[in-house]
């Protein structure tokens, strides 16, 4: 079962690289995505048996992250097929500087998309620190070509930054792995294997000093990849320059994978009785990330960068929730799902906006509701959801985290949390509302807007994935299904909440 989960996207990806004709390749993308989602569904019914001596298994936390990744990928795959059809002409003009550029070969793009899914699956099913490291680094490498889909100098710059920052960060995490091994060595005996289960079983005997140092390295290494400030520098660049469908995956799925890696090590410290150390660091980095994001969201001139900073903010919220513990852990788990779905929906909508207006400038996009009625509504709904307004999912999870902070007796943290949320709300509202209302620019009305009928401007493939994601977010806000709630509880208990 786990092998099937891993091999479906990997083999699909390799096949897509060599498949010449376009349409079979696009069908393969959809097929592999659907098959992956089907397999994940089956995992909900019957929990698969661990493989390779328990190195790979699906536990509650892993299943949650795997499901989010899989659902997002399916939505992104549908969008990507339409996107690739539209982008299939040989060369196009750069939206920002009117420079001509060519796209990356579509076969490589599709192949890397599927390999990206495969590597993310590897991260979620790993129960071995070394194997997880291999997975996280592999996600970087599989996604780097995706960011460089539009071959021009800005995307190249973003790709280079992404590669270097994440690779160096993750190299530090490898050192963290070794530190854990040293900590286990000083414990002596059977804890020498880096499987999470055996480490937790022997957690009391691990050398605390080495373990603390290891956590610091993990936090810096995987935190760089997760986008925690001040290590987030690659994130806005990569998210704004990548095609929107890739940004959706980066933000909704990739950041989660790095978060999962931090969660695993946090569990380890928790088991070793060092939770106070790691929790404080997580709360601190969480608050810093939220504050930095809030500063950069105000007056942001590029709407994809705005979404990217919003991701930094939400990664901060997740880190904060885990750091606080208790009910907030449950909230953070729920928020992981909510944020991923909402952010992916926003990025897909942003892709539609970019396609029509051909600019990422927040000031030059006006009259969205008029020019793109469906996307405009999605953009507004997504905005309301992401800033945590009822009745959407993020409201519920952010409220749970707030409650957790107050229950834990940390009023200062709760105040700072609410304050940054308010700042982000105002900052995003100013930008989003200005984009949605008003009348479209005159050049647009004379040109692209007049010659195409409304339904042609918004074909089904471009809005359906975002609509479905939006519906799920709305549902999660009013009703959390018992299976999901059960899973979230088990995940929270595994992370040390009671």
């Amino acid at each position, binding site marked *: 079962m786990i092998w099937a989960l891993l091999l479906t996207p990997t083999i699909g990806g390799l096949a897509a690289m060599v498949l010449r004709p376009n349409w079979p390749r696009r069908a393969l993308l959809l097929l592999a995505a659907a098959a992956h989602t089907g397999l994940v569904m089956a995992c909900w019914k019957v929990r698969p048996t661990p493989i390779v001596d328990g190195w790979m298994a699906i536990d509650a936390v892993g299943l949650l992250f795997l499901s989010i990744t899989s659902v997002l990928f399916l939505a992104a795959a549908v969008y990507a097929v339409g996107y690739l059809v539209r982008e299939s002409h040989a060369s196009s003009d750069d939206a920002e500087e009117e420079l001509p550029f060519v796209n990356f070969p579509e076969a490589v793009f599709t192949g890397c998309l599927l390999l990206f899914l495969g590597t993310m699956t590897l991260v979620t099913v790993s129960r071995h620190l070394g194997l997880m490291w291999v997975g996280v680094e592999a996600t970087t490498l599989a996604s780097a070509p995706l960011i460089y889909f539009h071959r021009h100098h800005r995307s190249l710059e973003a790709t280079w930054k992404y590669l270097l920052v994440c690779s160096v960060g993750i190299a530090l995490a490898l050192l963290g792995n*070794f530190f854990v091994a040293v900590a286990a060595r000083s414990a002596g005996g059977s804890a020498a294997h880096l499987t999470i289960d055996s480490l937790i079983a022997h957690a009391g005997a691990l050398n605390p000093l080495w373990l603390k140092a290891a956590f610091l390295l993990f936090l810096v290494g995987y935190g760089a990849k997760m986008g925690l400030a001040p290590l987030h520098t690659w994130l806005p660049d990569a998210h704004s320059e990548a095609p929107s469908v890739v940004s959706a995956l980066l933000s909704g799925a990739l950041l989660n994978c790095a978060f999962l890696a931090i969660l695993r090590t946090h569990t380890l410290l928790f088991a070793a009785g060092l939770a106070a150390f790691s929790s404080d660091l997580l709360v601190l980095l969480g608050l810093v990330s939220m504050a930095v994001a809030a500063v950069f969201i105000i007056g942001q001139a590029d709407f994809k960068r705005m979404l990217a900073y919003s991701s930094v903010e939400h990664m901060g919220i997740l880190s904060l929730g885990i750091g606080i513990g208790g009910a907030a852990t449950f909230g953070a788990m729920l928020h992981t799902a909510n944020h991923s779905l909402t952010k992916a929906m926003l990025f897909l909508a942003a892709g539609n906006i970019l396609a029509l207006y051909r600019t990422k400038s927040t000031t030059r996009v006006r009259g969205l509701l008029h020019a793109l009625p469906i996307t405009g509504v999605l953009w507004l709904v997504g905005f309301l959801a992401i800033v945590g307004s009822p009745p959407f999912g993020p409201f519920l999870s952010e409220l749970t985290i707030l409650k957790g902070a107050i229950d834990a007796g940390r009023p200062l943290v709760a105040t700072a949390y609410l304050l940054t949320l308010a700042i982000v709300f105002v900052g995003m509202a100013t930008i989003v509302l200005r984009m949605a209302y008003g009348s479209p620019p005159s050049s647009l009305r004379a040109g692209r807007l007049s010659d195409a009928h409304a339904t042609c401007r918004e074909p089904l493939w471009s809005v359906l994935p975002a609509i479905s994601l939006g519906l799920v977010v709305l549902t999660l806000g009013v009703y959390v299904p018992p299976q999901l709630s059960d899973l979230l509880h088990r995940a929270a208990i595994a992370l040390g909440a009671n």
Partner: protein
Amino acid sequence: MNVWLDTLLVLLILTNLHMLGSSRITACIRTVACQAVLLAAISLLAQPDGIGLRLLLLAAVTTTIKAGILPWLLQRAVREVGVQTEVEPIVGFTTSLLLGLGLLGAALHVAGRLPLPNDAGTSFLVAVALFTMMVGLLLIVSRRKAVMQTLGYLAMENGIYAFGLAFAIEEPLLVEMGVLLDVFVAVFVMGIAIHHISREFDHIDTDRLAALKD
């Protein structure tokens, strides 16, 4: 055995200093390749309980990739790009060397104080491992050319590998191979990126990649 090991470690320190002081990119690539060979030799010498088949295999694969394929890839990239020297690094060569000596002192100091588990290797090996890592990081932040930054990444990776050797950390073969594969693909992808950067910009100075900012 200890004399041999110490000699190799001193050689490793010298390779690091050479990278800090050299402006010629091809020379630096060769130096990183030398590091990989030295590390393979150290991995064979540092084992307390003899050389097994697994160890030999790993050493052979590591040497082939890190001292054979990767340097070849990078040399090719440098030839295509036509950039032979790091002209004006952000931190000058003399300053880099002095910093390097400082880092060496720091590494020796830290390694002497680390609480070593009783059956681990010498603290000198730990010090050299830390030093190699720090030199790698220093190269990444202080050099302009993308190739030099890639070399810094490789040196850092070598240092981490040496750290693993110092503590005789036996990761399972699957993981070791995975790590090696990742490093290989990382450098491969960076090589491709360097090629594209040079074609797009006619230079590979990463500090001039500054279009994206807030």
